């Protein structure tokens, strides 16, 4: 599969009154054509910042990309000037935000908001744009699109609005769709419908999806591959099977243990003790060491190298070092 988007050693920081917050500290991943990559992690781990950086929507100041590359079809987006970047946004890479209740402009009709994207990028006539908008509303499963086009956001329910937001993002047939917590603001039954919609759309259009979430249930349903982020870094990445059935990083293991399950007897939820580190002064070594039950002396001092376990599965952890493995086998 072609790599459509490559993020290489991305660094993003924010300057605040308290100092520089290093929100993203060297994130690298590839996105292949037609796949869904989920980025999971707790609040503040840098997953939303990563996604908004790809769109270059980080407000500058205070945000700043301090290093790395974002290659879209081989072209580095970081180097693009704002007017060129505007041609990429919405047309090649689209984004869906968390809360559909606020993501739509309350004073414009749905039709207007869906069509302005196409008009911006493809210079279609009003009639042609309307046709595309109708197709999109059909695609995302909105009944009576002809009437709905003339209505305002407040006339739709939350789930319907998220469908409209998705239609809006897909209207120019982008190659990459970034969904930043698309189901967090919805109730559970609607969540399932929206996830189903994502799968359906991917089948029909072949769009690659980056799904940002902290909900492992969502990930289990739709992701092909999963990247686990902690304190501004991807600590483990692998296929859905590998992450769910043979997690290697203690943080990933902790995350999975803290998810409620219905299919196991006596399932006790085990929280991860402690809190994430302060990103004003991130630790030199592994950021998870302070909370890690397996932490060794080296973990505090040196950041672990990447261990490639299979061709998809890699993890940043000292436990993968052969000396550590020997120690483990000794006990």
């Amino acid at each position, binding site marked *: 599969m072609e790599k459509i988007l490559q993020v290489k050693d991305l660094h993003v920081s924010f300057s605040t009154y308290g100092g520089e917050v290093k929100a993203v500290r060297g994130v690298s991943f590839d996105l292949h054509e037609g796949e869904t990559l989920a980025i999971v992690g707790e609040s503040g781990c840098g997953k939303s910042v990563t996604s908004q950086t790809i*769109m270059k*929507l980080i407000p500058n100041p205070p945000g700043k990309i301090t290093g790395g590359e974002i290659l879209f079809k081989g072209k580095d987006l970081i180097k693009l000037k704002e007017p060129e970047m*505007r*041609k*990429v*946004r*919405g*047309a090649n890479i*689209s*984004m869906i*935000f*968390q*809360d559909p209740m*606020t*993501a*739509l*402009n*309350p*004073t*414009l*009709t749905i039709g207007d908001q869906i069509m*302005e*994207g196409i008009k*911006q*990028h493809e210079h279609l006539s009003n009639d042609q744009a309307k046709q595309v908008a109708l197709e999109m509303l059909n695609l995302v499963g909105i009944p009576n699109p002809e009437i709905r086009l003339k209505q*305002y956001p*407040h*006339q739709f329910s939350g789930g319907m609005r998220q469908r409209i*937001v998705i239609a*809006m*993002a897909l209207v120019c047939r982008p190659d990459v769709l970034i969904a930043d917590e698309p189901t967090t603001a919805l109730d559970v039954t609607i969540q399932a419908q929206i996830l189903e919609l994502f799968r359906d759309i991917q089948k029909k259009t072949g769009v690659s999806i980056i799904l940002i979430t902290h909900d492992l249930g969502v990930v289990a349903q739709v992701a092909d591959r999963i990247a686990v982020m902690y304190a501004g870094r991807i600590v483990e990445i692998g296929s859905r099977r590998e992450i769910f059935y043979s997690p290697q990083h203690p943080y990933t293991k902790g995350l999975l243990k803290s998810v409620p399950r219905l299919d196991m007897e006596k399932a006790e939820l085990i929280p991860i003790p402690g809190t994430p580190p302060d990103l004003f002064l991130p630790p030199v070594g592994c950021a998870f060491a302070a909370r890690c039950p397996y932490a060794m002396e080296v973990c505090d001092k040196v950041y672990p190298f990447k261990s490639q376990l299979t061709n998809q599965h890699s993890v940043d952890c000292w436990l993968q070092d052969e000396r550590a493995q020997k120690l483990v086998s000794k006990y």
Partner: protein
Amino acid sequence: MNTYYIKRLVSMIITLWLIITGTFFLMHSVPGSPFNEERRTNEAVQKNLEAYYNLDKPLMVQYGNYLKQLVQGDLGPSIKKSSQTVNDMLGRGFPVSFELGFYTLLVAIISGIILGVIAALRHNGFIDYLAMSIAVIGISVPNFVMATLLIQQLAVNFPIFPVATWQSPKHMVLPILALATGPMAIIARLTRSSMLEVLTQDYIKTAKAKGLSPVKIVFKHALRNALLPVVTVLGSLAASILTGTFVIEKIFAIPGMGKYFVDSINNRDYPVIMGTTIFYSAILIFMLLLVDLAYGFLDPRIKLGKKEAK
């Protein structure tokens, strides 16, 4: 929709009636009458005059007579300028006052919004601070001070504009500027803060993510939402401009309604006081109606008189 307008009309009439009643009795409770001046008139003459204008009758009878007359559209004769009716005076003064008020409002709204938007877009930059400093000055300097300053600088020191009177567009510049600075400053500050709030909204992020240009984002997505609070204050701003015109008309010797209003109070010219008050109130009530209509037009969530349809 129609029942809304009928209800609204009824409430407007009731408001106006309350104002009329309040003004009528307040006016008569103030000591003095149109006929007591320093120059003492003969008591018999005064009695005759009072009888002529029905001022000798009990207050309730006078009130009843006035209402009866008013319903027929007659605001009565002026007591002090006995050859004129109040209708005549308003008919002559209103077009001038309206012209002044209308242009002032126009200047205040347009420049206020532009200033506010620019300040918001350059938030915490030099232009922002400059615009807001101008706004603070505009709010704190009363319009009569502004008027004298403008006259001194732009009519006397540098004779670019005429000092007073109301004849050509050139004559209008100074009074309009003097009257517009205050409301403009208020609108600018309000537009700025409301714009800053709107610019952090998610739908602005959505618009950016669509690849829209900054101009489109500001004018199509942000401004309309940001204007809602601005429209809300327009009603009361219109009021302040209307009342501001009294002073400005006096300073610039503009033959508008303000002159009649102020003179009539000093003279206890009862029909003129009533006439001008009723007229100003009617305009204000009408402005408030316009504001509500504009609200419904700007924000589709507000449908006047309609129950929320699912």
